């Protein structure tokens, strides 16, 4: 798998650009990923989403269901797609450094 430089450090990513070394994720990595996902510069709502995803994942080891995401962040799906044109799964989860979603989100 490819290695790329994100946030100044070298990180392994898969073909879809999801990072393969979850421990290396940080704010800067996120911002560089956001560039790829047309979600840069990241505003408050971007971070709200990304942080929520990340916290949820760290707590439960899974990505939250969309319904939960919408309810908890107060951002509706339309807005989420505006913030992350790739959508919650391809866009926001990638930026949040989560494993590539297979089901929910």
């Amino acid at each position, binding site marked *: 798998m490819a290695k790329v430089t994100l946030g100044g450090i070298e990180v392994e990513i898969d*073909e*879809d650009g*999801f990072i393969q070394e979850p421990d290396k994720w940080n704010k800067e990595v996120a911002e560089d990923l956001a560039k790829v996902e*047309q979600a840069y510069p990241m505003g408050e709502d971007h971070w709200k989403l990304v942080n929520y995803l990340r916290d949820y994942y760290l707590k439960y080891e*899974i990505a939250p*269901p*969309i*319904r939960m995401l*919408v309810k908890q962040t107060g951002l509706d*799906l*339309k807005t989420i*797609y505006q913030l992350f*044109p*790739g*959508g*919650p*799964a*391809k866009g926001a989860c990638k930026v949040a450094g989560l494993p*590539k*979603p*297979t*089901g*929910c989100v």
Partner: protein
Amino acid sequence: MADETPLLDELEKGPWPSYVKEIKRAAKKNKASKDLLGIQELSYKDRITHWKHGGIVGVTGYGSGVIGRYCDSPEKFPDAAAFHTFRVNHPAGWFYSTKALRKICDIWEKYGSGMTNFHGSTGDIILLGAPTENLQPCFDTLTENGFDLGGSGSALRTISGCVGKARCEWANIDTLDIVRDFTSEFQDEIHRPRWPYKFKIKASGCPNDCVAAIARADFTIIGTWKDTLRIDQAAVKNYAENGFDVKGLVVDKCPTDALEWDEKTKTLTLRAEDCVRCMHCINKMTKAIRPGVDTGATILIGSKAPIIKGAYLSWVLIPFIKIEPPYNEIKELLRKIWDWWDENGRTRERLAELIERKGFKTFLREMGIPPVPQMIYKPRANPYVFF
């Protein structure tokens, strides 16, 4: 890249049209198709797939419609290393003008492998194999030309219906218009996954169910009628006189014994209250028997493939309902179902599985639908009743 495909070559022989010939045809003009041929030959040799798991790619603003796919040997097959597919939504009934079809071919010649499925088994046009960088331009060109993507992921999937009133005398509902109307209404649900899992809607014009709606749609709409089927006795007589065995092939095969045959007068009598509208007599005596005129649909829910709890067939939710534009009642019901499912469903739990887990009774209560015996084959045998 493979020049020698001894295994696949075997599949050019024989009378049935050969997909291998088709790939070779595309491969002549297109490198990705050439690599596809090589990958397929390798799979035949190794007896294993050479596609990697998953892939999450897409087009701007959509969460669905593209299936990401990467080859596990990109070094050998660089031109098919990324080989994503588009699910392009079809016009209801799979009718096309050649103009529209040619347009798709041209677009796909430009951006993709030149290989397609007409159609995928949900009903989409499958444009098979484009590299990541072509996804967005290809999509933009598709929409410019009036086409849009279908569903994938935990979204509403491409809706389909039988040929219906366009070419069938038995359509009790306008399946094509239902597909068109619902597809427009639910564009957001199709393109932006949001639920615990996929959701499918299919509509057949009569109980023959030519799109297998009862076997593979969470929400199944099947046309039927409430009054009595129509028998043209003169035409019946005609059948009998032409040697058709009305008694043996129709009357005796009626599942409820609702028909009676008078061999002397060559008349066919129906005990209307016993007819369960199975279509058999109509199917076999097309010129003599027709559905009734008080038409509408039976709504059934829940069918799906085996993952996880085993396969389901759809079962009756609403025995009879009028189906007329703007279809508000059905749309409201759908939204209510989605809401309940979304609120209660676990990840990857299809509607039927959720209903089974929570109890059909609970579902009926939530939907405000009164229980009727038509919903079941038979009442419970166990005494484990909640009061």
